[in-house]
């Protein structure tokens, strides 16, 4: 993989931002564990279209069920939770994030770090593109009888445009539905100054995140924008957008990557620093969490680096220019919700991926298709064909699952990835 010197460097680098992130996430779960005794209120909500700055302005703590599910997947707990949900009658085809969440709840709602997750004081459903979200919260509503629900309906970007009446519609819902409920639950009045100051912090962190993600345009790339990228988006897609801790994390991360870039170092992998970047890939679709490291290894072992991915945009497409804007607080939240990847139409997704292939000088692109995730998998084969036609770059297609360990067939997936990379190599040889 690499010599001992760079490995040591790798560990040191990993320690700074990774340790900080671990602290943030651990701290958040601790805070959730203490919430009831400290009298703090908790809001369950989703990553795409999350209104963290607004919730935080009411001193509310967010709980993100998808994050809990993926954390459970990485900690090898999801299989048991999914079986539990299936016992409750949920079919094999249902989104495995949902089943993992329901199973976790049925088994005592102990979070991934071993601390209990408090019951919600509000279910804030930000409906952005994924129709499963609605069904998911219907289930939670049944489980938490009497818990108020606030529904924010974000219009789908069917024509790839954000129209002003979309924005107006969302702002109106924020004013008439979401904010009153947040006030009611928190017992605090809406404080726009507080929201503005949170939004200012968001934009600051977003600048640094975008810089980090775009560092992958360099050859060789100092980061892996998918397997490493999912860690980088953790704080901002989780509970830390609009917080000083979030700003601090991204500043630290950026300085680390700046250093790697200056030293012409490749991405850090669980086995140390990648010596040689042999393939640059764009990946569409979420990763598999239950065998995350094994999955990653199949790429870095072959020298494949992911330079851009759509999954790292589910919580916001900051690299397309959007920043939270404190001068128009509610409008900017509306724009944010409208612009999440899950809310984009298929043509818009293809456009985005096409740009990524070109802008990041990718040799190929791969789709990790997750059948139980309708939001991502519908239309992926069509996207594959269109992208191949438009970019002339060959696409690869693999299938796995989010957090159901039964749907990760390591031998087969490895075989596909190897075949695909050898195909790229062969094409390169033929072109030379």
């Amino acid at each position, binding site marked *: 993989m690499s010599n001992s010197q760079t490995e040591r460097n790798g560990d040191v680098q990993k320690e700074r931002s990774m340790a900080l992130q671990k602290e943030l996430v651990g701290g958040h779960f601790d805070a959730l564990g203490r919430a009831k005794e400290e009298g703090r209120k908790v809001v369950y909500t989703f990553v795409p279209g999350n209104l963290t700055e607004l919730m935080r302005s009411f001193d509310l703590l967010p709980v993100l069920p998808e994050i809990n599910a993926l954390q459970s997947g990485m900690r090898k707990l999801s299989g048991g939770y999914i079986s539990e949900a299936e016992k409750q009658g949920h079919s094999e085809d249902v989104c495995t994030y949902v089943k993992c969440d329901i199973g976790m709840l049925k088994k005592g709602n102990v979070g991934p770090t071993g601390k209990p997750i408090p019951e919600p004081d509000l279910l804030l459903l930000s409906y952005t593109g994924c129709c499963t979200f609605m069904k998911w919260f219907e289930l939670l509503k049944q489980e938490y009888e009497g818990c108020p629900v606030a529904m924010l309906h974000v219009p789908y970007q069917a024509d790839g445009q954000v129209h002003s009446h979309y924005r107006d519609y969302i702002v109106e819902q924020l004013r008439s539905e979401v904010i009153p409920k947040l006030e009611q639950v928190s017992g605090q009045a809406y404080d726009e100054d507080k929201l503005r100051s949170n939004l200012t912090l968001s934009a600051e962190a977003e600048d640094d995140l975008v810089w980090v993600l775009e560092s992958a345009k360099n050859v060789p790339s100092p980061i892996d924008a998918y397997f490493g990228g999912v860690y980088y988006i953790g704080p901002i897609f989780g509970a830390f957008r609009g917080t000083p801790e979030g700003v601090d994390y991204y500043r630290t991360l950026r300085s680390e990557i700046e250093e790697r870039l200056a030293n012409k170092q490749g991405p850090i992998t669980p086995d140390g620093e990648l010596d040689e970047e042999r393939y640059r890939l764009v990946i569409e679709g979420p990763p598999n969490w239950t065998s995350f490291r094994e999955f990653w290894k199949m790429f870095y072992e072959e020298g494949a680096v992911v330079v851009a991915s759509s999954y790292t945009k589910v919580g916001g497409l900051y690299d397309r220019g959007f920043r939270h804007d404190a001068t128009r607080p509610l409008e900017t939240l509306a724009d944010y919700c409208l612009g999440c990847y899950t809310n984009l139409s298929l043509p818009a997704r293809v456009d985005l991926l096409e740009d990524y292939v070109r802008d990041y000088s990718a040799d190929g692109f791969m789709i990790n298709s997750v059948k139980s995730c309708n939001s991502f998998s519908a239309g992926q084969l069509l996207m594959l064909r269109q992208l191949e036609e438009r970019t002339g770059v060959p696409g690869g*297609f693999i299938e796995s699952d989010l957090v159901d360990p039964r749907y990760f067939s390591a031998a087969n997936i490895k075989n596909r990835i*190897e075949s695909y990379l050898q195909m790229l190599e062969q*094409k390169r040889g033929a072109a030379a």
Partner: protein
Amino acid sequence: MKVFIGIDLGSTTTKAVILDGKANVVGRGITNSRSNYDVASQIARQEAFVQARFKLTRDAISADSELSGVEELFLPLLDRKFRLNHHVEELDRLAIELHNAADGPRHAAYSGSLHELLDEIVGEMRQRAGKHFGALAMRKSEFFRDLAAADYMQLAEEQSDPKGITFETLTGLFDQAILPVENSTSAAALEQLIDEAMDAALEASQVSMAKRVDRLRGAVDAARAEVLDEVATVGTGYGRQRLPFPKEHIRSEILCHGLGAHTMFPETRTVLDIGGQDTKAIQVDDNGIVTSFQRNDRCAAGCGRYLGYIADEMNLGVHELGPLAEKSTCHVKINSTCTVFAGAELRERLSLGQKREDILAGLHRAIILRAMSLLARSGGIEDQFTFTGGVARNPAAVTALHDLVDENYGERTTNISADSIYTGALGAALFAQRGHQEAA
């Protein structure tokens, strides 16, 4: 002579192809993969080397104008003599292993009578060996395991005694004995068998060849003396990670099938390969370079193993399924390609009075329907279209494919080589040969 080897370690069978320096095929070998890829690749290789030796012999004979046409008589004779000798040699080893197994403590009660019975059975198997390799013999399989098992089971059934040495005892012994027999062959022993077969074939040709027998001997001796210098080997297939080669000598089966199909049929643009546990749809350019591919991922329903399972359920050999299905006169629609459900569906339909051949035709169509979906995903079917893999040998699968290609894409030239099962190994051997050329 410099030779280049490709080995395809499939889930069901392992194939080897040997090429000369000009990329001509000089030998092919195939064996069942068992659970041991190392042995399987060794055996397939050895068989390919035997074939290569025969090919050299054929070429040496046909190079002599005075021996014109003799190869057409001599080679089949040589082949039969070799196969018979080889079979008998394996029977000898089987006898030893059977006796070893019979010495186990579980069988102590039978004392001498079990050994006697085994001698009797193996003796009869030796008698039957000649029939398997007669000039007009039709063999159900080319594998020793299958031929020996069929004879042994029949004899065991006849000679067992429910109150004494039971059929189960005898089959247990066979299962124990066959593995070491299959898994131990030596290249030197094979060389010796080839030598003996050549002598025996020359001997048998003495009368018919009269004066020309010396010329024939000269040609045969020249072929025997030729050294086959193994320059490079490339491995592919499911077991490729097991091969003791450096990583650059291992290629994915996608690339190998693409290149192999292109070499067999240079106008190929789309390749469908249905193997034991996977189905691949591959698009290649005019140089045989893969441009896109799709393969089954989360489930292997509808692959070659499915047919194996159905054959077991119907108590038929897998090679008998296709011809039987071809006799179908009535369309039966089968929806499930789940291997496990297929058995239930089969029994259900039989109980409804549907005919075996009609159900089988429906099953074959179901497999091909699944393959059509992969082909569509990979970019459709371009002209020309080449079908490879073990299932391409099945006439009912081919019929279903022709129908469905026609229905969905219109007329396409569909190529199927008699050697389609070797496509992956051929591609691998070509990579070995090209790699060497590039390095030189």
